[in-house]
């Protein structure tokens, strides 16, 4: 109870302070450069030069503290030893590129990178196209979208039950094994099945991201001028031709944005691997690899080096993604 009050109090305080800052600084500026004196025109011009910085200021400072500083510090850490004290030059990088765990992570990340965005976008597009045309489409849409509301950890717990395995002589409580056994097969430890287990983990993220892709693509599909579709119908195109040759090309921009957004997410994939396998049985990925070295290996230098590799992979895609999204608007 007390905690709740404290939380509410600090929230009110925070919002109040923000409001006070914006209002007060704006007010102060108007007092310093009044728009009424003999220099009204010059004052307004000067005030307008300063005003954006007053409003941007807090955001710029917070971004610097939480984004720019960590990047710089990571670079610094990556050039130092496990405690961040002795300078080791490029040793961490040399170690990284010779490390088996890193190679495995890169391979798996590439797999995730190819499979998850493609599958999520594909299923999302199919779901968007199909649900737009049917009466109970909105119910179907909500069901497909629902996993978006579940945290990755929560989703992993759910899927752990689906992939669960028991000894062959007891009843299977995992859905997948129950089905396999019902069909006369032998139960499998799915998440410990090298190589293929990567795909079983990917299914979880696809399950979550399909809803996201569907919602965005469905909006894009609705934005296509109905008359272009009617014109294609008049020209004798069948529904599949209309979908592939008229609709999809008109929403390429949106498809690309959805694809890259999921790509960025995939590059950072962590929780699912941590919760399902913790990187065992050949499922290691970069983010979990970094986490391992940071909190289990207790080597700040190596962890920071891995973090920088992830950043180097994400940033170009991110820039492209933002450009494309702005082009669309």
């Amino acid at each position, binding site marked *: 109870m007390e905690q709740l009050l404290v939380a509410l109090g600090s929230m009110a305080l925070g919002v109040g302070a923000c409001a006070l800052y914006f209002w007060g600084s704006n007010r102060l500026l108007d007092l310093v450069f009044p728009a009424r004196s003999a220099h009204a025109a010059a004052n307004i011009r000067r005030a307008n030069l300063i005003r954006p910085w007053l409003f941007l200021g807090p955001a710029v400072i917070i971004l610097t503290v939480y984004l720019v500083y960590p990047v710089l510090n990571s670079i610094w850490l990556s050039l130092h030893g496990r405690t961040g004290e002795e300078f080791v030059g490029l040793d961490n990088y040399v170690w990284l590129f010779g490390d088996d765990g890193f190679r495995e992570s890169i391979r798996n990340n590439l797999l995730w990178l190819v499979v998850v965005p493609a599958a999520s976008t594909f299923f999302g597009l199919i779901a968007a196209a199909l649900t737009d045309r049917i009466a109970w489409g909105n119910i179907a849409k909500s069901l497909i979208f629902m996993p978006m509301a579940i945290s990755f950890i929560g989703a992993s717990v759910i899927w752990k039950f689906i992939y669960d395995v028991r000894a062959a002589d007891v009843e299977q409580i995992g859905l997948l094994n129950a089905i396999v056994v019902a069909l006369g097969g032998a139960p499998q430890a799915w998440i410990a099945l090298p190589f293929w287990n990567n795909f079983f983990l990917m299914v979880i993220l696809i399950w979550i991201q399909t809803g996201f892709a569907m919602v965005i693509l469905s909006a894009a599909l609705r934005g296509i001028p109905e*008359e*272009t579709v*009617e014109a294609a*119908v*008049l*020209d004798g195109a*069948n529904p599949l031709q209309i979908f592939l*040759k008229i609709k999809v*090309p008109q929403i390429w921009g949106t498809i690309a944005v959805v694809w890259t957004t999921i790509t960025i997410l995939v590059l950072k994939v962590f929780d699912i691997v941590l919760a399902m396998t913790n990187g065992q049985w050949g499922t290691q990925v970069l983010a979990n690899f970094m986490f391992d070295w940071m909190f289990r290996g207790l080597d700040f230098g190596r962890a920071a080096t891995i973090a920088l590799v992830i950043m180097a992979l994400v940033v170009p895609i991110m820039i492209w993604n933002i450009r494309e999204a702005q082009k669309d608007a």
Partner: protein
Amino acid sequence: MSGIADVRVAGQEIRLEHVSKSYGTGLAADDVNLIVPAGSFTVLLGPSGCGKSTTLRMIAGLEETTDGRILIGDRDVTRVGVAQRNLSMVFQSYALFPHLSVAENITFGLKVRKVSRAERQRRLQTVASVLGLEALLERKPGQLSGGQQQRVALGRAIIAEKPVCLMDEPLSNLDAKLRHEMRVEIRALQQQLGFTMVYVTHDQVEAITMADQVVLLNGGRIEQVADPRTLYARPATMFAARFIGTPPMNLIPASALPVEALPRGTRSDDMIGVRPEALILDASGPVRGVVRSVEYLGSDTLVDLDVDGALVQARLPGQDMPAPGTLLAFGHGPDDLHVFDPATGRRREGGVVETGLPRQSN
């Protein structure tokens, strides 16, 4: 060099029998009976919201009929799919495919129908030369002006060589000058190619200048079907009388005019229609009114008159500028007075109500 003769087609007759369309909240088309003769240029005319687009889209098959039958060239197409109706259409927005080049836009239909590449190229060249699009074939629609996009939309319609072409307000997004050019061009194209045209517009000038037959719609019902001259000279209803002509025809209660000036058989509560341009200054004429206001238009002058309490407009030639308050008298030609029954809104012709609607003889 290929030319127009290569794309000539035989138009087909279109027939609407008791066609109705309901959107749940009232009728967008109400018992429409209509014959569009093969090879004719028929214009659906009427104010916004009167059901022109709905009627056109029902002919196209983009909208289902609630009631009635639609026949194209003797074939009942009421339940036939859009693509099987064998017609082309130009949309108000042009509906060009933004991701395809002009050439691909025009040949899209041929490609879907698996017409050979050589044949596609041949027809594309013909259409492009007819419409003057040769230099633009590789561009995307976004790189074209409004008038050029319009031409591409036309090209897409005529390359199919369909016996029927439908157009929904195709000129409404163009500026006045271009609209005039395209009016002439579309009309010429239709006459040369020979297809049946159903053309929707709310602009009476477009209708009058382009049509063989005008179908005037109001509130989902047909007011009159006639050629432009008849529509202007013998409007079948008070609505038709007011809708055609600028400024619109005057409608004066018969009681405001001297009895001897009225056509025989006119009842005292009838409405008399007379066009502003049919009134001729004549000191001994029967229509007398006091000038209320004067509007100078350059080539002529428009005067608002008070005729026994009714507002009447007259068009005076040239530089005549009567001062407000002047009493003027007007005469008119023998056929210039139109008598309407205010109860039905219909024209009264020697005691016979003329409807102008082609009725089924069933």
